[in-house]
């Protein structure tokens, strides 16, 4: 299945694995400590500090690597939460139908009608600021989107004859949701997974930039943009490096997601030889 991978997907795979490796092995790779002040403020890049230093004289490369760890870890946890929650509720709503579907769908509509960022800002400023709260808020807010997709896909599958055959056999809801419907809904959901992960990275960065995400001295990319943003006035590019990393991660994950999406259409005979 890994033959004939298009170039764009290879680029995406390589870049994403680099980011992941950096995140996993951060303490071993990073040349300096996370909060260690090593030089003067905003030094330009040199042989000693590859990306220069930040607003407090800390090594920017080390903070970038630790930042990758925090950013990717939180985004992954939030995506996992939003997916399990959204998929489970979406599929169940489609299978059970009736009042459960109605109640869930209108509740999700209600959540979606409030701008996510503003909703998150309000909730996070009230609740105690720790990692668990942050992941919960991000995950639950994003699960509304997953719910909509999962339900839409499952409603189509739910009327297929093989699901009817399972019902006639007397199968319970658990079998129908997890064994009949989920495997067939998985491909669009996995493609969406990549996109949702990127939205989580962007969401976390936005929250940190606004001061409600990761708290200093811990590093994450959005927070690093915030710390170094004043340098831009003096022509110092330190803020652009984490911003660029966010963009690069977004693009590379999207390249993989595109490839998966294309493979799905191939399976359905979507490729035309005309």
């Amino acid at each position, binding site marked *: 299945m890994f033959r004939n991978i298009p170039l764009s997907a290879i680029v995406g795979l390589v870049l994403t694995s680099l980011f992941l490796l950096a995140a996993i092995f951060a303490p071993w790779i990073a040349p300096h400590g996370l909060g260690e002040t090593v030089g003067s403020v905003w030094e330009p890049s040199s042989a000693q500090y590859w990306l220069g230093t930040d607003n407090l004289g800390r090594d920017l490369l080390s903070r970038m690597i630790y930042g990758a760890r925090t950013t990717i870890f939180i985004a992954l946890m939030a995506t996992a939460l939003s997916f399990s929650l959204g998929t489970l509720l979406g599929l169940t709503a489609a299978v059970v139908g009736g009042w459960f579907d109605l109640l869930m769908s209108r509740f999700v509509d209600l959540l979606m009608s409030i701008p996510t960022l503003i909703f998150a800002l309000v909730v996070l400023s009230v609740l105690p600021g720790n990692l668990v709260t942050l992941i919960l808020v991000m995950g639950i807010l994003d699960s509304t989107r997953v719910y909509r997709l999962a339900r839409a896909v499952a409603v189509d599958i739910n009327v297929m004859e*093989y699901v009817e055959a399972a019902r006639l056999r007397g199968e319970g809801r658990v079998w129908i949701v997890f064994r009949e419907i989920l495997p067939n809904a998985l491909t669009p959901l996995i493609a969406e997974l990549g996109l949702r992960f990127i939205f989580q990275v962007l969401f976390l960065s936005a929250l940190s930039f606004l001061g409600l995400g990761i708290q200093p001295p811990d590093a994450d990319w959005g927070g690093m943009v915030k710390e170094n943003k004043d340098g831009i006035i003096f022509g110092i590019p330190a803020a652009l490096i984490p911003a660029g990393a966010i963009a690069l991660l977004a693009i590379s994950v999207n390249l993989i997601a595109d490839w998966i999406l294309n*493979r799905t259409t191939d399976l359905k005979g979507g490729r035309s030889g005309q």
Partner: protein
Amino acid sequence: MVNSDTVLLDVRHLQLSAMAYPPDAKPHKITIVDDVSFTLEKGQVLGLIGESGAGKSTIGLAAMAYGRGGVHISSGEVLLNGVDISDASRKELRRIRGLQVCYVSQSAAAGFNPAHRLIDQVVESTVLNRIASRKDAQARAIALFDTLGLPNPETIGNRYPHQVSGGQLQRVMTAMALCSEPDLIVFDEPTTALDVTTQIDVLAAIKRAIKKTGVAALYISHDLAVVAQVSDKIMVLRNGKTVEFDETRSIIEAPKEQYTRELVNVRGIEHEQKVPSDNPLLTIDGISAAYPGTDIHVLKHVSMQLSAGQTLAIVGESGSGKSTLARVITGLLPPKSGTINFDNQQLPPYLKKRSREELQQLQMIYQMADVAMNPRHTVGTIIGRPLTYYFKLRGKARRDRVAELLDSIEMGTGFTDRYPAELSGGQKQRVCIARALAAKPRLIICDEVTSALDPLVADGILKLLLDLQARENVAYLFITHDLATVKAIADSIAIMHQGKVVRYGTKSDVLKPPFDDYTELLLSSVPQMQAGWLDEAIARQ
């Protein structure tokens, strides 16, 4: 020798190829049609017949130099009026298609634009190519509507596609093809999707129009009995190669090749009728049903009985309520009134109220085997799940029983780990039969189980069902629109029309005259494997 003046279409050593893009392998070239040659004279009709994958539609489209999904002419020549059209330019092709060669597809409903009136679509190519003015073209179309036996030929063209029936739409499409007075029409399974009583009307209309206009035609079908009614010559195709090519009468009456003989003798199953017992397994008593939210009764006071180990065939056309009856029996649609007794006990009307034993004894096989099986489950899971669910079989016991079931449907254990997409149509239906059998049911509802299959494959399935019935003593409630199938396997027959049972009894009683009007119409509409049957049938009606 063929006279070159009268030859319209001359196909020489035609080879058609396409690129295949399997998901797990490199793209490669596949040959769909190989070394096919024939000539068609002006005013003649050539029937192309074969099972799915035989390349008959592909050849038909090649006659207008068109390839679907990347198919192209890789070698050979297609001469239309002496000109090779296989390498014609796009501009030349636009003149050829719609002017010299027209196409009538299987699904007229998908061929019409729902947003335009029929008459505008019928005259479109004639007017665009400046063959006639809009007024003349419309007059031509109305004359064709009349020839094709459409009601109100003057005004029917003002309707939209959804305002006419399927059979009428198919005739309008034929009028569309005839309107520009082409030399050749390609009919691609024009009556396959129609009910049997509608099919005979459309077939007669097409035949009449061909005779009147003198147009030549390629008639594509998988049903030899149908092709034999309209064609002068028949070409039998298999896997893209010619099996036999001869005059219609010779093909029907003296086929030379083994494969052609099989096609001619299809449905030659002998089945001895059993006598219904006094203690029926299934008793349907006065069932009336309507779909939720509507008050239109799809079933009106339907009653019938089925004895253990026997087959009750429910025959009817689309809309007769036969599939709704299956939904009522399975509990998917609770009836408004009436009762269903199974093994002397009343079945709860709601599926959810039925016990596991009641569900286990009543299984179902569907028409479309490929949507009746979860594409993400292996054959082993599909057949094995009922074993675990009903009989708590696991591990080796389950594997052994799956192997036994695969053996009983004449497939080997090598299929256990395959996915439905890797099976042929007939194999898929066999796996569905094995899934039903796995539950050790006493009754299987078969809903049009052979209608989506090629005739020879369908025969194999019917034989298998009869074998299994003899071995397992299982009863079948066999829903079908095909009377030939019914004759082959039924013990009792119920003929349904508009939600009512119009005729019911043992097979010999139902098929013995005197008939009521509807049964007479139904029986006389089934195409017979003999030349000239259509003319006789029309004369009789």
